[in-house]
């Protein structure tokens, strides 16, 4: 028992080390082919381009830990972006107020997911597949698909385009969220309950964990984070349109899974997710510096994911296969003695 647990721990540890190693290799390779790859400017580009997806991946990690999934975050990003634009331009609200209201809309949308999942006991995949279309549809309906919000004041664009205290301004927000989610998942009883729910929801319920409340919490959190990502996205692009964040949910899920979180729940880590986000972002940026066309990035991300996942499953399978082979030998040995 004890050795098995120990072995499992080193395995989880190893997945992240492998990923880190891959990241370092990526970095050195691109550095050797692209003279401008290693510059500070480029590192900031990578950071700026991965923050929205990074935020969504951070919010997705606790959800996947509970064995759930949220397909609606990309669409919600779009809905929140145009909500923000509408509140600022058409309702004439000052930027901070519009931003606060947008976060509330995000929380409400997350609450809708949460209530459908916890009250009606519908599978998260089905619920968020529904809200995936619903949120995007709402965004398109509000703008009739063509309205674009733009001409934001420079003080707001600062958040997405300028540097503050040496880092891109939005990186500070990301840092705070990353630390908060890490503490939540790894240093609180909440985090432990997410894993317990992921392993066995019924068991968690019998153990006295308020499963519904914990689940509601992670989905509302994802809604708020998507809204935050929407505000940063708008500041980075200087425009909000209904198609913002299309396909981001899949990038976020890819990063989480690449980071070693089991899609069945129960196992995973926030730092793994961060490494996953970084591995994908560096790959996609580095290929430009290696003068490779964009479609190669998608292909290599897929290869990376498959390799990393089989890398953490195959050793387990080999281990069981070996023990199975050893047992008859042990029996033989015990028979002879």
């Amino acid at each position, binding site marked *: 028992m004890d050795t098995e647990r120990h072995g499992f721990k080193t395995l989880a540890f*190893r997945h992240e080390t492998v990923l880190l190693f891959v990241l370092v290799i990526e970095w050195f390779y691109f550095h050797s082919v692209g003279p401008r790859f290693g510059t500070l400017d*480029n590192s900031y580009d990578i950071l700026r381009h991965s923050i929205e997806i990074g935020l969504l991946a951070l919010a997705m990690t606790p959800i996947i830990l509970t064995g759930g999934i949220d397909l609606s975050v990309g669409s919600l990003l779009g809905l929140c972006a145009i909500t923000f634009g509408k509140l600022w331009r058409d309702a004439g609200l000052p930027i901070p107020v519009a931003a606060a209201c947008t976060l509330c809309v995000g929380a409400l949308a997350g609450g809708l997911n949460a209530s459908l999942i916890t009250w009606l006991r519908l599978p998260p995949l089905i619920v968020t597949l529904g809200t995936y279309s619903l949120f995007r549809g709402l965004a398109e309906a509000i703008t009739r698909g063509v309205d674009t919000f733009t*001409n934001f004041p420079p003080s707001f664009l600062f958040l997405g385009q300028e540097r503050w205290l040496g880092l891109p301004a939005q990186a500070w927000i990301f840092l705070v969220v990353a630390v908060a989610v890490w503490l939540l998942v790894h240093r609180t009883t909440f985090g432990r309950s997410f894993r317990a729910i992921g392993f066995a929801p019924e068991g968690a319920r019998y153990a006295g964990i308020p499963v519904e409340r914990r689940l509601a919490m992670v989905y509302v959190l994802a809604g708020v984070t998507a809204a935050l990502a929407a505000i940063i996205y708008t500041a980075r*692009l200087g*425009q909000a349109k209904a198609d913002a*964040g299309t396909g*981001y949910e899949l990038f976020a899920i890819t990063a989480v899974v690449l980071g070693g979180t089991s899609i069945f729940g129960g196992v995973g880590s926030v730092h793994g997710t961060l490494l996953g986000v970084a591995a994908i972002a560096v790959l996609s940026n580095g290929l430009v510096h290696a003068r490779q066309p964009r479609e190669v990035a998608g292909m290599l991300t897929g*290869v990376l994911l498959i390799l*990393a996942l089989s890398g953490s499953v195959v050793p387990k399978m080999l281990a069981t296969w070996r023990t199975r082979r050893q047992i008859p030998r042990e029996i033989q040995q015990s028979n002879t003695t």
Partner: protein
Amino acid sequence: MNKFLSFSIVAGLACLLGCGKSSDATGGSSGGKKLTIALMPKSKGNAYFISCKKGADKAAAELGIELIFDGPTDPDPARQNEIIENWITLGVDAIAAACENKEGISTALRKAKARGIKVITYDADALPDAREFFVNQATPEGIGHRLMDEAARLCGNEGEFAIITASLTAANMIEWQKHIEARRASEYPKMKMVALRPCDDLKDKAQSEATALLSANPNLKLIMAICSPAVPGAAEAVKQAGKTGRVKVIGLGLPSENRRYVKEGVTDSVILWKTEDLGYLTVYAAHALAKGELKTGDTRFKAGSLGEFEIQGDNLLLGKPFVFTKENIDQFDF
């Protein structure tokens, strides 16, 4: 065993990246002072832009520059910005972009300009302060005149014709129609426009409008469709009414959508610019801009084998639209 596995993963990845490297090496190393021009389509798989690239490649080979052609492969509107920001860091000499999101992409293009990269746009413009020149594939005047000239030629300079437009309120349609009318009044006074019908940019609606036009105007000699879905729509109506040849169809559209009708003789001519020339001119202009040979205030620009082009303000004009007919339509695949 586990160590071996993690090692093989890393080795595999390194191999993959290595493949990328070797193919890059065959693509020609960017040594010396070779200029690098980055060309961005609205979306990468679009046949229209693939044929633009053909012309761009030809220009790049003639000029001896390195051409990067990259653009979004997914519908994410932030992607064009990301690629441009990557190009800025990469240190390309000039960027030529066809803009999907006018306001959004301008943020990134302004940043490129601020870093000393020459920026032009083609096909779809950005905000004027975000670029130096716009390679304009067709002015409203050019389109209007070409359509009217073609109509008059087919009708023998006299007779009735009708126009099918996308909507009566669309700014570009109104602009084109204004130039069609001006050309008619000054050059072909014996031509008479009997109807102007909107089709809401729908092929079905265009077809039913054309059918109605045919029965209401027995002397109609020609239908002019000025939005792309209307051209095959009008052609289908004429074909079904059995008036092929007696009522001519012309319009503004893609050769690929109209090839069938053109070959059957229902549609006489389809008018559009040559996308290959658009790519060619764009690369030549970007190159000249990066070399300082093209400056604000110039009125003419010479682009390789295509000869001279006119510049109006900050618009570099591709010139008169091209007429696709039964004879040449098979040479174009967009």
